């Protein structure tokens, strides 16, 4: 192997982004990526949300950061996990990466980096839609930091799941039983303080909860710092897990 553990990461990243750029050029693809968060925004934000106030503020201001967190999670996870599934079982291009003399760290860095970029682009589109709907956020450094950490950790989960599953069916199972419930229960649509303690406590063990907390902070408050610290811990552990899975990958 090359002495630089990141050697080769750039070429993996560039290839993934090239494939992404080709997909972005298709309007149907962009629409299908955006349709779910836009529906939530219209139904919950502009429809039901007009009757609701959260912590003294309007519901749209509460909802849009949550939808951005959800879009970041879904896109960074799905792009990496389903991309790996397709590369392993359909196009078989994953073999090329595994047969190249590049380190597991480089493989993870390239794929996670691309997953982050895709997640952040989707999140940006949701944010722009939120602004168009009337969301007026206070500028906060906690928001971009939380999104960076969130996309990194969910892209890392995508790598682990993408390499451990034995086909698209299993991938769908993880999406249905792990990722989608997180989107609904981790504070995207309502504050966790609305839930009984026996339910809200365990939900703090999930990373999206901390992302949603940090995304709604007006700056680097104590609450934001705790949430960012939790996200950092999740990201480090999950990136290490992804490197471990790549290093042990065999067919």
């Amino acid at each position: 192997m090359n002495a630089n553990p990141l050697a080769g990461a750039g070429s993996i990243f560039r290839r993934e982004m090239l494939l992404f750029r080709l997909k972005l050029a298709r309007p149907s693809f962009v629409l299908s990526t955006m349709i779910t968060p836009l529906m939530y925004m219209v139904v919950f934000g502009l429809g039901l949300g007009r009757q609701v106030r959260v912590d003294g503020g309007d519901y749209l201001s509460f909802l849009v950061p949550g939808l951005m967190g959800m879009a970041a999670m879904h896109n960074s996870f799905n792009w990496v996990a389903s991309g790996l599934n397709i590369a392993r079982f359909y196009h078989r291009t994953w073999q090329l990466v595994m047969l190249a003399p590049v380190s597991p760290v480089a493989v993870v860095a390239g794929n996670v980096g691309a997953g982050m970029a895709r997640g952040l682009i989707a999140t940006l589109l949701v944010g722009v839609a939120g602004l168009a709907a009337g969301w007026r956020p206070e500028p906060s450094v906690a928001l971009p930091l939380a999104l960076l950490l969130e996309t990194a950790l969910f892209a890392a989960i995508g790598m682990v799941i993408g390499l451990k599953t034995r086909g698209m069916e299993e991938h769908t199972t993880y999406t249905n039983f792990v990722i989608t419930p997180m989107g609904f229960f981790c504070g995207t649509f309502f504050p966790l303080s609305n839930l009984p303690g026996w339910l809200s406590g365990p939900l703090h063990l999930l990373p999206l909860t901390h992302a949603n907390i940090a995304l709604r902070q007006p700056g680097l408050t104590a609450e934001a710092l705790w949430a960012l610290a939790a996200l950092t811990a999740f990201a480090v552990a999950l990136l290490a897990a992804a490197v471990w899975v790549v290093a042990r990958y065999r067919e």
Partner: protein
Amino acid sequence: MIRIEAATRRYGAAVAVDGVDLHIAEGEAFGLLGPNGAGKTTLVRMLSTLARPDGGRLAVGGHDTVTQAGAVKRLLGVVFQENNLDRDLSPRQNLTFHARLHRLDHVEKRVAAMIGRLGLAAKADTPVDRLSGGQRRRLVIGRALMTEPKVLLLDEPTTGLDPAIRRDLWDLVRDIRDGGCTIVLTTHYVEEAEALCGRVGIINHGRIVALGSPEELVARHGGPRLEDVVVALGAGGRE
């Protein structure tokens, strides 16, 4: 160049490769012949480092495929049965990615030269999806040659291609062989092994059941053609 000792690989209760011993010299073109499910592909996957043996040892260029996988990867070019290409990308983009992944120098020049060698200049920037089966296969083989490998593993390189394209690919493989590259070719086309390989191993139920040059095997088994020997041994016989 390649040394396989008592290599075994199981998938659950099934034994795909069963104690194979095999030595392949540098510059040799070696053919593995056998029916579907005989263990050819599993042996290639173990040599490529993608699959680990459950028992025994495989080495390429003196490097163990498990403990020194990085060194083995640097010696190998691998062509699997499937055309494992990025279908939305062009031949130029596919080759460029491969060259960069292997950190080759003068990438653009190398890619242009390979496209010329493969006769794909007119399709260099066309998405792979729009290439013919033969063109895709040439591209997959050409991609494996980008790193100038010392050993080329070809797993059923012409399966599913029509005879004219198959013969065209044989010429490409002959070129590679004549350049001094060690070749391991798996196939179930007897004439392919005869045309390209100086030595052939017949594999069945995960075991090498016969080994020698095509002429030696025919003489030893009294069959008028190598195909008769393969049919006889592939049906369960053993030397």
